[in-house]
Every structure is written in structure tokens, then in C-alpha cells.
């Protein structure tokens, strides 16, 4: 057996091992995190990088929003800290929305990795923290400065010594400071876990550096990605747009896709300008989700790394809502960011004719509830903050119905109702599929869901609405009909807003009706047995079977 082929087998094994190392890094973080969005929803990322800052492997976590943001982050750290200023035992951090992941709540921690006293690469991870000061998590700020503490790229540890000044600044500027500082230390610890495993692997395979392995990974990934993209129509362009609710006025997202020199370029020209509110998106985040949408449909099996992501390019004019610049407020950038996969998928279908899913409910219906006692003499001990993730329906696929009450593009989990009710004095009276909400089509859109929540006797609550698709329903594709738009109201009939802070008094019940996904293909082509089943299951009514599908249910 030649040394060449042997080396090849070893490198395959090591590539596998690296992916397992970053998965382990990520799972350590999930189990120690205080922030519900990290532990319940996997809102985190972890990766290993070569000496030049190129990402070699990344954990697959709950949030595609970190796909590209992670890939670019380490370059910024190398540029600002400088190789000469990096020492064994160092740990760096930032929450710069434009160098990290798009908002101040995410903290990115980078640790240099040394072997035999020489720098060989980096570990990085990112997680959402419980609080970052300012107005709290919500869209109401008018400038970044109101959204909380901004941490430029800084050393958290130097040669193993913690930067106490930095820790003290953080501790004095955030709510729940024990948890926030605990989470930041966890981020550093999870890089350390990865580093230990990497060094074990390098011992086992007798490696002094990572560069040969990096080239092997990049070469194979680049080749596979090039093959996956080779059939795209060179030189052709396509355009798609989508209307959304925005904060107080509708927002248009627009994209032009083009193919040139083996790369696919998404240009957000034509998209609405920045909003005065915190729904703006830094380009790095829009890029992450757009890239995720394209990658899912074009090259799903290729792991994320520097080379496999390189052919997916995203550009946008300055100061459009998907390319907001500092100091625009960006706190809930996830709302619009999570629509970019549907946006680019629509353009991809026009570009290639390939079948892509219909539009879905898109962004999560995250609900942050702050419960307060109505007793005049109540102290703050009965206060409770409850965070819940809820999902509407996804768009129908060419071969399959959409998924009911399932997150897309986010990969988060919901929390058990029983667990949420333990966090504070609320009762969730209903959390059930929303009949008649899936868009009709040959394949039906996924159903949304209905949620009813009230404060318990003697309490009231405020909630921070960050919902969309209330005024603009998810559209069908290829002749499929739109899914049902969402609705925010009280059960007494009062209509509420889809964005911003609102109150639910004692004795009232909040009613959330989440959007359903769009249908795919003409309703007339739907299999009759499936229509009969939809009626039997109560997904649609008999009348709808007749009016939408011209089908007489028994």
C-alpha cells in the first residue's frame, strides 16, 4: 500500500474526528447554558479553524444563522489582535453584530490553539446570552446604543489570566449577571474541550500542524461543491421578491440570483431601506440564512467549511434592511433574516426550474412573557420571565405536504407547556394545530398552530411581540394557494399588534394564531384519498374540501 493512499485514509478519519470534536464542543455548551434559546433551541455554534482563520469544521446546531457568521468571525480576530499578540492561554471575545452574528445578544469567543508552543489554529463558539443590558430583547430600540452593552474584540483571558476589568464591566451592565458571566465562561470552557480533543488527535496521528489536513478538507469540499453547482445555468439571472409586515410598515425583500465563474451570487438590491426599529439585519446574518437556503437545495451533504461556503456569495446595497450599518438597531434581526431562505429558494426555482418548497411561516413566533403581580404591595419576588418558541407551518414540497407546526429555517425545539408553566404564573390553555391554515395544493402546506395563554389570578403580563406574516400570508408555488396569515388578539376579540410590547391584563387571554405554509401545485391535482384524510383528520372542513378541491367528503 502506498504512503499516498494511506495518508488519504488517515485524513478521512481525521476529518470525521474533527466534526465529532466540534459536535462535542457544542454539546458541552448546550448542557451548561442558562439561556433557554441555547439549551432548548440550540442557538449556538462551534467550529475549528486553521492558522489562517479558515473554518475547517463546524457543528450542525439549531441555528443556520451561524453558518456563515462563524466562518468569517476568526478573520476579524486575527486582524484585530494580531498573531504577535496571541499567547497560550488566551481567550478573545466580541458581540459586535457586524463581526459576530448580527446582534448584541450573541457572544462569540475565540481561543487560539497551541501545540509545542506554536500557534496551530483556533476554536470559536457563539451563544445567545440571557441578557446584554439596554432595553432587553425586543424590536423597540431606535439605535444600537439602546440595545445594550457593545463588546469590541477584546481579550477575556491573557496567558490564562482573566481580564477582571472586562468581567466587571459586563457584570455591571447586564441583568441576570451571574448567568451571563457563567455563560461566557462556559463558552471559553467549551473551546478548551475542543482543544483538548484536537491535541489528542494530533498525538495519535503524529501531526505538528493542521495545514495539510486543512488543504485536504478544502480541496475535497471545493471539488464536491463545484460538482454540485456545475449544472447551474452560467450567466443567467433570476429575480424574486416577498412582502412582509415589518415593524410599522410593510417591508419588501428582493433578491437577484446570478451564476458566474462557478459561484452563485445573491444580490439583495431592491430590498426596502433600514427601519427606525430593531428589525434591521446586518448583512453577515442575512448572508448566513440565504446561504443556508441555497446550500440545502444545492449541496446539502457537504459539511460547512471555508471551501464549501466560498462559492455562495451574497451582496446588498448599503443601508437596505438586509444590510443595516452601525448604529442601526438590530436586536431582532432574526425575524427578517429567517425569511431569506424562502426568498432565495423562490429565485432559485426561477433560475433552474428545480422544485423548491412553497413559502412557509418563516420566522419563529418567539414569545417573551414578563409576568407581574397585580397586588399593590407586591415585591418583585413573584416576577417571572418566560420564553417560548413556537412554529407555524412550513411550505409544501413538490413531493410532500408541508410540515405542521415545525420550524424552518430555524432548527429549534419548542418547550413543553408543563415546563413553561413551572417558570411563572401563567396558564397555557391551548396549544394545538390550527385547522384550515395549510395552503391548498397538490401538496398541502403545513398547518400553523393556535395558542391561548392567560396570566393566573392575581397576575398580569407584558409580552414582546416579534411576529410576522400577519398581513402578508405565505404564498404557494406552482399553482398552490397561500397559507393562512397569522393573527394576534385577545380571546375577547381585541386585535393586537404583531410587533412591540403589549399588555395582557388579569382575566384576559392572549390568542396567537400562527401562519400555515403555502401549498405546492394546483389543488385540482391533489390525491383524492389525501383530501378525504384531511377532512377525516379535521385539517380542513367539508366545505373547504368542496370549495378548494371540488371534493365531496362522505
Amino acid at each position, binding site marked *: *500500500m502506498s504512503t499516498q*493512499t*494511506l495518508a488519504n*485514509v488517515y485524513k*478521512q*478519519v481525521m*476529518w*470525521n*474526528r474533527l466534526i*465529532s470534536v466540534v459536535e*462535542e464542543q457544542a454539546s*458541552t455548551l*448546550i*448542557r451548561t*447554558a*442558562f439561556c433557554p434559546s441555547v439549551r432548548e433551541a440550540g442557538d449556538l455554534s462551534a467550529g475549528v479553524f486553521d492558522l489562517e482563520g479558515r473554518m475547517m469544521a463546524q457543528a*450542525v446546531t439549531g441555528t443556520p444563522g451561524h453558518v456563515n457568521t462563524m466562518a468569517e468571525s476568526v478573520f476579524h480576530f486575527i486582524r484585530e489582535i494580531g498573531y504577535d499578540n496571541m499567547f497560550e492561554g488566551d481567550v478573545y471575545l466580541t458581540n459586535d453584530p457586524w463581526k459576530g452574528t448580527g446582534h448584541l445578544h450573541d457572544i462569540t469567543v475565540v481561543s487560539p490553539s497551541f501545540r509545542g508552543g506554536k500557534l496551530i489554529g483556533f476554536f470559536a463558539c457563539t451563544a445567545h446570552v*440571557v441578557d446584554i443590558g439596554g432595553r432587553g430583547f425586543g424590536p423597540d430600540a431606535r439605535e444600537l446604543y439602546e440595545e445594550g452593552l457593545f463588546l469590541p474584540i477584546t481579550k477575556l483571558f491573557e496567558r490564562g489570566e482573566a481580564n477582571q476589568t472586562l468581567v466587571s464591566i459586563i457584570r455591571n451592565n447586564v441583568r*441576570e449577571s*451571574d448567568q451571563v458571566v*457563567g455563560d461566557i*465562561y*462556559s463558552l471559553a*470552557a467549551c473551546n478548551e474541550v475542543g482543544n483538548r480533543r484536537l491535541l489528542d488527535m494530533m498525538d*495519535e496521528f503524529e501531526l505538528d500542524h493542521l495545514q495539510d489536513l486543512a488543504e485536504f478538507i478544502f480541496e*475535497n*469540499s471545493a*471539488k*464536491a461543491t463545484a460538482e*454540485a453547482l456545475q449544472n447551474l445555468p452560467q450567466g443567467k439571472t433570476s429575480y424574486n421578491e416577498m412582502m412582509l409586515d415589518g415593524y410599522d410598515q410593510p417591508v419588501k425583500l428582493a433578491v437577484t440570483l446570478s451564476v458566474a465563474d462557478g459561484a452563485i451570487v445573491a444580490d439583495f438590491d431592491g430590498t426596502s431601506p433600514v427601519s427606525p426599529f430593531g428589525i434591521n439585519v446586518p448583512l453577515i446574518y442575512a448572508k448566513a440564512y440565504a446561504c443556508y437556503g441555497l*446550500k*440545502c*437545495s444545492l449541496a*446539502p*451533504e457537504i459539511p460547512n467549511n471555508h471551501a464549501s461556503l466560498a462559492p455562495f456569495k451574497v451582496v446588498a446595497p448599503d443601508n437596505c434592511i438586509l444590510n443595516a450599518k452601525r448604529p442601526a438597531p438590530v436586536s431582532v434581526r432574526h425575524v427578517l433574516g429567517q425569511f431569506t431562505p424562502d426568498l432565495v429558494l423562490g429565485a432559485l426555482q426561477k433560475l433552474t426550474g428545480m422544485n423548491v*418548497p412553497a413559502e412557509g411561516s418563516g420566522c419563529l413566533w418567539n414569545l417573551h412573557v414578563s409576568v407581574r403581580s397585580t397586588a399593590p404591595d407586591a415585591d418583585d419576588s413573584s416576577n417571572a420571565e418566560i420564553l417560548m*418558541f*413556537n*412554529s407555524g407551518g412550513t411550505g409544501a*414540497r413538490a413531493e*410532500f405536504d408541508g410540515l*405542521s*407546526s415545525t420550524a*424552518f429555517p430555524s*432548527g*429549534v*425545539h*419548542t418547550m*413543553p407547556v*408543563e415546563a413553561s*408553566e413551572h417558570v411563572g404564573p401563567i*396558564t*397555557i*390553555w*391551548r*396549544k*394545538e*394545530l390550527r385547522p384550515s391554515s395549510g395552503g391548498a395544493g397538490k401538496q398541502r402546506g403545513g398547518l400553523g398552530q393556535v395558542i*391561548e395563554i392567560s396570566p393566573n389570578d392575581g397576575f398580569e403580563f407584558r409580552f414582546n411581540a416579534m411576529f410576522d406574516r400577519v398581513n402578508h400570508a405565505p404564498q404557494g408555488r406552482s399553482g398552490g394557494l397561500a397559507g393562512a396569515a397569522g393573527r394576534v388578539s385577545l380571546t375577547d376579540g381585541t386585535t393586537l399588534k404583531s410587533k412591540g410590547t403589549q399588555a395582557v391584563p388579569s382575566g384576559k387571554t392572549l390568542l396567537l394564531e400562527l401562519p400555515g405554509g403555502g401549498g405546492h401545485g394546483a389543488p385540482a391535482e391533489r390525491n383524492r384519498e389525501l383530501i378525504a384524510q384531511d377532512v377525516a*383528520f379535521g385539517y380542513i372542513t367539508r366545505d373547504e374540501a368542496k370549495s378548494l378541491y371540488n371534493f365531496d367528503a362522505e
Partner: protein
Amino acid sequence: MTKDATQNPVRVGVDIGGTFTDIALELGDSIVSTKVLTNYSAPEQAILDGIHEVVQKAGISVSDIDMVIHGTTLATNALIERRGASTAFITTEGFRDVLEMRTENRFEQYDLNIVLPKPLIPRPDRFTINERISAKGEVLKPLDEKQVEALADVIAERGFESIAIGFMHSYLNGSHEARVRDILQARLPEVSISISSEVSPQMREYERFNTVCANAYVRPVIESYLSRLVVRLKEEGIDCPVFMIHSGGGIISVQNAAEFPVRLMESGPAGGAMFAADIAERFSLDNVVSFDMGGTTAKICLIEDGRPKTAKTFEVDRSYRFKKGSGMPISIPVIEMVEIGAGGGSLAGIDSMNQIRVGPESAASEPGPACYQRGGLRPAVTDADLVLGRLDADNFAGGAIQLSTDASSTALVKEVGQHLSLDAVSSAYGVSEVVDENMANAARAHAVENGKALETFTMIAFGGAAPVHAARLCEKLGVERLMIPKSAGVGSAVGFLKAPFGYEVVKSAFMRLENTSAAQINETLDELSSAAAAVINEGAGDISPVWERRAFMRYAGQGWEIPVDLQDGAYSEQDKAQLAEQFAATYTRFFGRPIEGLPIEIVSWTVKASSPMPEVEKVPSLADSKVVTSPIARQVFDSALAKFVDAQIVERDTLSAGARVIGPAVVVERETSTIVPTSFDVFVQNDGSLLLQSKNLTA
């Protein structure tokens, strides 16, 4: 040997698996075993055939049998193949779709076309009732009994055979569930009814509802099978008590099993873990990782101080590449294992990045790996092992199947080699390294999740393919001791004979430590203790059980609890401080350092009662060893050295205690071959077990 020759009772372990039904008869110190093909239409027939065979081999009569201990995959299979009873599910108004909405996530991020598993009970069979219990266990909305009466008519009319009842927060207050059961049972005496506060009183509605539905769904099938089995055994003159092994690795009565059949899931693998635990005890091994590799999957379990790790929940029927989240959660106490799609039959190929991939797809027994020459054209792990000289083509499975090395080589080159410019041997090496790496990664990740480092552990390997791959796994994991016990081929059935009467109960009872009185802690533990004792006393009589009690704790604000072992006896107020310290110590072991200044919460509690086990006979350690050599040798590929080496071939039967075989070697026996790489030596133990020891230790 006759029964009279021994003082010990004659016990028979029976494990019904997907392909084989394994029978192990314990007579004094020896085990007589057999494998017969599983009979799907009449599983009890295979048992009887097998029992007759071992009884004859042992030279005793069926009437000499004192006890039958049985484990079966029938409950799991009924669930996976959806062959259960027609079942209605009754739940709280507003929560009809909990089973269908699951956790609202996609188990595979990058596949736009995933299809979610169908809920066990379809929507038209799910009914809601007006009632509501609060998160404090108080009645928020009283039960609408009129509505229940009306529902009884619907259920009667639609002819359901079984009913599952699951209400919100019933783990705190099961009165509404019990009341609905009583009303319905009075009206529908023939229908079997399961309630979630009895089957699985754990918080998290999706998992609890799924568990009670699974119980109800398989209950009529299992009830009828078990009663048939007991009758048939009696008819054949086997009049002894029959007990069942459950997923937690303990023994329960047939009656109890029939009431809670969901507890029978995964009892086969649990038996395997008990088998390894028994070996661990015999050799006084405190830290053990068991490795069970068969045709389709590999299972890895941690065993410390002779006790397999347990969990409160697991997932069955993973529908998408064994991926977490693609199956059905079942919340019952279970021996915790990781299972990955890696076995002798796992198929190899290359992916779009020209990387070798192995499994989870398996060639199974039909058509089998390419070397079987039964129509399988794709290479499996067994093909790679054959090309690398690890298997003897003429003596595989006791010569039952003649293997073709040429067929293996052709398949490997076609599916792997030609894409990567590798010859057959290099391809085989790649396949074998990838599958070993996958298993090592799974083992490592499992250890990390439990806050352990495997380097100090001993591996105990069993199952057909395990002895072939175990030593390489040890090299990758830095494990320096590997035990290959005797009877490894029927490990689960033997494990059943080693299991105590034992039952574990779990309950969610949320408490913040600082606000909780010692009395509350004692009350919760007492309640669980009586429940567990009641079950084991049914089988074991009035014994004084051995207790294991645990609290699952976390810092307020976290979502992941870690198990903390509790002291024996009642808690006093002073003991609470000690509990907090114990938590901090456990937390540090898992995650490196405790967190100051945060309150501590207890989320759930488990109590396990077991019958005291007779002291196992320790295997005396070897006084001396003597190097044994074999004149026969063949070329066997050593993965760590990446080349063929001259390995001696030794028949296991010819080795006596104290024999030492210097690696590289292959120890061959009827069911399998143990590969001893160059970096290991074998020491034959006093009970015939093979201990492979790294040369680092003996040097």
C-alpha cells in the same frame, strides 16, 4: 450432569430477538445455550423448541427447571411495525395534537424533504375532555364527567380495544386520569386502560403522552402473548414461575409486565448490559464500557461499580439514519446506551466528497455481505474484515457459510476503491477504519456526556462482530484492557440470569432546594420507595431490598439536570447543605467548575429497589502466565500499523487458564474470532474469559 449434582436452582434465560431466539440454561457453574430461529407467528414455539434442546444437552428434564426469565423485542416490534391494538387517546381540552406536534423541530437540518414519523394515535382517535390541573397540582378546571360518559358511547361504538389517558400535569395530580379510567372501565369492562400518571409520572407532556399511548397500544398484544406462553409452558411440564426482564435490567412478574408492557422495550440490550455487569463484578472492575456489536448496530453502555448507567427516557423507532429526534420518545427507566448503525452487515460506499461512508444501511442476513454470495453486491464491514484476513473464509460461523474473498474484493473495489484509486486491501482498510472511528466517536461522546474519560476503563465486548473490532476501538480510545467473556454469543440471555428482581420508579416533583423542607424530600422518596417495593415483592417475596435513590438537579435557569446519588435513610434539615455540596461536586465532575451564587433546583427523583444479589464468585486473578504459541499463522491486517502482520491462529478451546498469547494473533471459536493486534497480548483467565491487555501495561 443431573440436577441432583448441584444445589443451585436451574434457571433458564430466554431472549427473543429479531432473528434468533437465544436460550441459556444455568446449571451449577455452567451455561448450556442454543440459538433457534425466531418464530414470528408463534414466538412461544421457538422458546419451547429451544428449551427442549438445552434441557436435552444438559441431561435434565423440563420439570427440573425452577425459573424462566424472559426478555423480548415483541413490544418494540409491535410498536415499530404498528401492529398494536386499535387505541383511543384521551387528553386535556386544548392539547389534542401534542403527539403530532412533537418538539416542533426538524431532526435533519439540511434535508428539505424529511417526512416526520406518524403519531402513534391518529388525530380522529384522539379525544379531549374539559378538565385542567395546574403546575402546582391544583384543580384549575373540574373534570366534566358528563362529557366522559358521552365519550364512553363513542369509544364503544368505534370498537377501540385499548385506551390511553394523558392529562396535563397528571404527574403531580393523577386524580382526573384515575376518575376517567374508573368511569370508562365501569362502562367498558373488556377494554384495557392505561393512564399516564401510573405508566410514566414524568413532567414533559409530549414524552409522557407518547409513553402512555405506546403502553396502551402494545398492551393487548403482550397480554395475550404472555398468557399463552405461561399456559404452553405448563402444558409442556414447565410449571415453574416465569418472570420478565425489563428495560431497566431488573426482573418483574408476568402480571406486572402485562400491565406495563412499555417497560419491556429494549429488554434484550438491557440483558447484554447485565451480562457485562456480571463479568465486571466477577473481575472487580469498577469502570467498564460494554461494547455489543451485531449485524446491524453497535451498542455502547457505561458500567460503573458493577451497575450499568440508567436514564429516564429513550427513543425507539428512529426512522432517519438512527438520528436523534426521528423516533418516538419513551419515558421509562432504562439502561442507557448509545446505539449507532454500525455492524458486520453495515454497507460501505462513498459520498459526494469522495469520502468513505459506512452504515447505517445494513445488508442484514439476506442478501448479506458480498462474501456470502447470496446476491449481495455491495461491500459490508464483514467483507472488509475478510479481505483484511480477520475472518477465516472456510470456518465462518462454525463453517455454516462459505465466504468468498474474491466477491468481497470485487465489491470493495467497485463501490469504494475505483472512486479513490485504492486497491481492495486499501479500500477494506478505509472501510474498517471509518466504521471503527464512528463507533469510537460515539463511545467518546457518550462518555463525555456522562462526565467520564474512557482511558481508565476496561472494555467488555460481546456480540458476533465485537471481538473482531473491539481491540482497534480500544486503541482509538486509549483503553488498555479488553475482556472477551465466554458465551458472548448469547450474552443477553445469560445476562437475564444475572439480573436481580428490581424496579425503578421516577417522578417529577419540582423543588427549589432552599425552599424545600426535609419532610417534603422524605415524603417524595417514601412514596416512590413503597411503589418500587410493591412491584419487587410481587416476584421476590418479602425481602429487604437494596435501594438506589437519585435526585436530578440543576442550577435555577438551566435546562439540563444531572443525577446526584442520595444518602440512605431520612433527610434532616442539616442534610440539605450536604446535598447542595454533593450537587456542586457532581456538577464540577461534569463541567469543570461549579457556579457560585445561584439557587439549586431538583426536578425529578428516582428510587430503585432490587433484591439483594448473592455475592458473585470472584474470578481469582492469574497467579502466573505462560506464553503459548501456535504453529499456524496467517496474514492479518493490523490497522494501527497499517500493514499485514503474521498472526498466530489459536483455537480458543485449546487454551487453558494462565495461557498467554502474544499479539498479533487471532483466537478463533465457533461463533466468532477475537483479533489481537500487535499492540496487545491475551491472558486466558481462570473462567475462560480472554483478557486482552495493551503491551504498554505488560512491558
